[in-house]
C-alpha cells in the first residue's frame, strides 16, 4: 500500500488519427455487457453506447469534411451529474473517477439531464440478450437491471484487475498496464489511457501537447478526456 501512489486516471484521443471506424464502440459493448437494441428501439432513443462516435459534416458536396469525435464519459472533476443525485448513486472517487453505483440508483435520471455531454444511459427494461450472446458476457462486469443509470467507467474492472495484478507481483503499476477496451481496440492507436499523476505517462504527454483541447471546456466541468486536434 505504501508504494501505491494516488492515481488520477485520464484519457487522450487524437482526433487527427481517428478514422471513425467504431471499433471502440464494439469493444465497449463486448467488455461491459452493454444491452443490445433493435432498430425500433434505437430509433426511439433507447440504444446504449457508452462510447459513441459523433459525426459532423461540414460544407456541401463535393467539399464535404467529416469530423469524428468519440464521446465517452469525461469523468469530470467537477461533474454536474454528481451533486444532483438524491441518493449519492454517483460520486467522485479518490482516483478521479466519476463512479456510478448501480445498486444505489433509484432511477430519477436527473444526472442524465445534467450531463452536458449526454454520455449517460438508462436501463429502461431489464436487458435481454438473444442466445448465444449471454455466453459472451464479461464476468467481471455486473449486469444492470431495469431502472438503473449507467455510463462509461473507464473500464474500472480493468483498473482494479491491473492494480491487483501489480500488487500480487509486488511491483508498482506501470504506464500501459491499464487499457480500457476502447483504447485497446483502436486500430489507428488514436487513444491512450493512463495516470495523469505520472508525468512520464503517455497520457500526460499527450495532454500537454499543443493540440490538446477539452470538450465543452467553457462549462467548467474539468473533464479528463483530452482531445488532440489541429488548431484551426
Amino acid at each position, binding site marked *: 500500500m505504501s508504494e501505491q501512489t494516488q492515481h488520477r486516471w485520464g484519457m487522450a484521443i487524437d482526433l487527427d488519427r481517428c478514422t471513425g471506424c467504431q471499433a471502440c464502440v464494439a469493444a465497449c459493448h463486448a467488455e461491459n455487457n452493454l444491452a443490445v437494441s433493435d432498430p425500433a428501439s434505437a430509433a426511439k432513443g433507447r440504444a446504449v453506447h457508452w462510447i459513441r462516435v459523433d459525426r459532423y459534416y461540414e460544407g456541401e458536396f463535393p467539399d464535404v469534411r467529416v469530423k469524428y469525435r468519440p464521446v465517452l464519459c469525461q469523468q469530470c472533476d467537477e*461533474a454536474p451529474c*454528481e*451533486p444532483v443525485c438524491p441518493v449519492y448513486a*454517483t460520486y467522485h472517487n479518490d482516483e478521479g473517477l466519476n463512479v456510478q453505483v448501480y445498486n444505489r440508483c433509484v432511477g430519477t435520471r436527473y444526472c442524465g439531464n445534467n450531463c452536458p455531454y449526454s454520455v449517460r444511459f438508462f436501463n429502461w427494461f431489464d436487458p435481454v440478450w438473444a442466445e448465444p450472446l449471454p455466453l459472451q458476457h464479461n464476468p467481471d462486469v455486473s449486469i444492470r437491471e431495469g431502472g438503473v443509470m449507467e455510463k462509461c467507467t473507464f473500464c474500472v474492472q480493468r483498473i482494479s484487475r491491473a492494480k491487483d495484478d501489480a500488487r500480487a507481483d509486488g511491483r508498482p503499476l506501470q504506464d500501459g498496464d491499464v487499457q480500457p477496451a476502447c483504447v485497446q481496440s483502436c486500430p489507428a492507436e488514436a487513444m491512450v489511457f493512463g495516470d495523469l499523476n505520472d508525468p512520464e505517462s503517455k497520457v500526460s504527454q499527450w495532454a500537454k501537447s499543443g493540440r490538446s483541447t477539452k470538450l465543452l471546456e467553457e462549462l467548467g466541468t474539468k473533464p479528463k478526456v483530452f482531445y488532440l486536434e489541429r488548431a484551426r
Partner: protein
Amino acid sequence: MSLYLAGTFRTKEAAVQAIRELRASGYGPGDLTVFSDEPAEFPRGVLDRPSHMSLAVVLGAVVFFVLVVAFVYFTQYNYKLVTGGMPIFSFWPAGVVFFEMTMLGAILMAFGWFIWESGLLRRDKSVPVPAIEPELICLRVRCAAEQFETIAAALENAGARNVGKLA
C-alpha cells in the same frame, strides 16, 4: 363548592357589559367563559387571554433549524462522498432543506400550541358546557353556591335570557 351558571345575550355590547360588571365584582378570566358559534371579538381589556403562541412558533422554528443543520452536517461527514468537486458540507446548497424543516417546526408548533392553548383535548369533562346557540353569545360563570343569586340577578340585569344553573 362552585357551580356554573349561564345566560345568553343577543348582542355583543350586552355581553361586554355583563363581563365588565362581573370582573368588577372580582371574577377573573378563569371564571368566565364565552361560548358562541363564531369568534367572539371583544374590545381590549374585556376578556383578554394572553397567548405565547407566536413566541412558541418562533422557538419551534429555531429548534428545528438547529436540529436539521446539525443532522445534515453530521450525516454528510459521516460518510464522506465528494460530488461535483463541492465541499462535504456547505450551507447554501442544503439551505432549502434547512428552510423547509424550519418552517415545518413552525407549523407543527403552531398546531400543537393551538391544541394546548385551546384546551381542546384536555377539557375537564365534569365541567358543564352550554349548547351553542346560533347568533347568540352565551356567558358561563363559575361561582360559589352562595353567590348564585347575585350573579344570576347581575346577568339578568345586563339583559341575559335563560339564566340558570348548568347541569
